[in-house]
């Protein structure tokens, strides 16, 4: 699909930056098609090439809409609610897939790797939905690729950001960034007051999640550094409550950070918002109030006996 987008970009003369777009999506396509067979070093250079193409001259966009609003309204009237069928088929088939794949086993082993169930179900669902759409609408054969390229160009470089951040997280892990941060946190907190410790733990989860972009990366570090030694062992707090609410405090951090790009940055691109922080700005008030609620809840519940 990425290769198709690259080729369509090549042929579009309405976009002044068409060669940049072709190079960017073309290299991205290579990482999918050949990435598993290339050595790590080659993949690393491919990634660098993409970043340089995207950042030095930037990507452009071709003509925006493929049809005028009137045309689309006319078509919307013609197709009516049938249009929702393929669209809703995506979530429904995905859900059915995730439920079924977990049940189907051959000789005791699941047919699909359990960790991949959602991903594979989503892939199947998109194929089903695309087939439904093609049968129903009977568009030209290349139409889906052309439409994909319209949307993908609107998203632009943000499409690759989640993967880049995951790679950064991996390097942080290699460099032991987590331990350094929790060491710093331990040096600063007053250790003799349970309320202060609980507050530090919850805020620490949120802040550390904002830095790493992912609560899963923050949880082991903060819990080993502050949660277990202080809340559980020193003050006798309930580890179940601490862990459950601690993780959710981390999720409050996820709502506030551009590092969680697939939740916070990609939607602004998908919804064509000019401010890439627009979604984060809406989420911050909820996240802060909820973090406050979490701190209070943990204080009441963790020492409840």
């Amino acid at each position, binding site marked *: 699909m990425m290769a198709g987008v690259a080729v369509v970009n090549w042929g579009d003369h309405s976009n002044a930056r068409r060669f940049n777009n072709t190079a960017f999506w073309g290299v991205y396509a290579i*990482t999918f098609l050949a990435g598993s067979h290339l050595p790590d*070093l*080659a*993949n*690393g250079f491919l990634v*660098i090439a993409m970043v340089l193409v*995207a950042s030095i001259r930037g990507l452009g966009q071709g003509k925006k809409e493929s*049809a005028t*609003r009137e045309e689309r309204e006319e*078509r919307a009237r013609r*197709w009516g*609610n049938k249009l*929702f069928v393929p*669209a809703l088929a*995506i*979530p*429904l088939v*995905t*859900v059915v897939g*995730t439920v079924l794949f977990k049940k189907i086993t051959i000789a005791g082993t699941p047919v699909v790797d359990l960790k991949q169930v*959602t991903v594979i179900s*989503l892939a199947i669902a998109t194929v089903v*939905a695309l087939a439904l*759409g093609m049968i129903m609408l009977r*568009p030209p054969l290349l139409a*889906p*690729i052309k*439409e*994909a390229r319209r949307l*993908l160009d609107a998203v632009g470089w*943000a499409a690759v950001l*989640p*993967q*880049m951040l*995951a*790679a*950064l997280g*991996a*390097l942080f892990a*290699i460099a*032991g*960034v987590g331990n*350094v941060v929790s060491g710093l946190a331990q040096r600063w907190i007053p250790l003799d007051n349970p309320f202060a410790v609980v507050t530090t733990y919850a805020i620490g989860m949120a802040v550390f999640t904002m830095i790493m972009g992912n609560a899963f990366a923050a*949880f*082991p570090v903060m819990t080993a550094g502050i949660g277990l030694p202080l809340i559980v062992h020193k003050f006798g707090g309930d580890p179940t409550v601490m862990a*459950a*609410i601690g*993780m*959710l405090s981390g*999720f409050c951090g996820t709502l506030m950070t551009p590092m969680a*790009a697939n939740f*916070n940055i990609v*939607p602004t691109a*998908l*919804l064509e918002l*000019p401010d*890439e922080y627009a*979604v984060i700005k809406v*989420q911050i008030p909820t996240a802060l109030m*909820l973090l406050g609620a979490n701190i209070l809840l943990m204080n009441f519940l963790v020492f409840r006996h």
Partner: protein
Amino acid sequence: MLSLIGIVIVVIGFVLRINPLLVVMIAGIATGIASGLGPLEVVAAFGKAFMTSRYVAIVWLVLPVIGLLEHAGLKERARAVVAGLHAATTSRILLAYFAIRQITAALGLISLGGQAQMVRPLIAPMAEGAAENQYGELPQSVRYKIRAYAAATDNIALFFGEDIFIAIGSILLIKGFLDQNGIHVEPTQLAIWAVPTAISALIIHCTRLLLLDRKLRTEVATKIEKA
């Protein structure tokens, strides 16, 4: 301490709004070198990590079919359906979506939604359509605000719903981590203690959504006055 340089670079880069891809790459290379890797090793480590997280790109697979349906008028149809419901307001549509998304996520159905599959083609146009019904043609800034709220609603409902389901990644991670440290907890217990926060999230975000209609009304009014 030197290994924190990556964090510093990321923060500066995001604040100055330099292209995030470039910022992240430089931060990654700097972190790698600061921790004693050679330049080629850093590039290799980066390439490897980039490849192993390829699965996050799976969401782009839905774009061909969504694009195809949009070309056939999907968003316009979503708006038209809302136009037929006189009780529909932006607040109420997003409230309904929040409730459905949080409950289904709590039952483990986390893929019943999502930014590319649901928010862009259906939820955002519906929320915009409801506002159009009430106030007529909308200023562009109000459209952007409604879309941002639609995206945020999906995220918040998902995050604070999914942890009530016992087989979700975060619960398994907590259990695994505590097991390693000699503390044995039940996933069901972890899920139960996620409920108070889930209810708080529901109350907080739904209150904000309830206030959204009023906010949109004043914003539309002031924009029209200015014009």
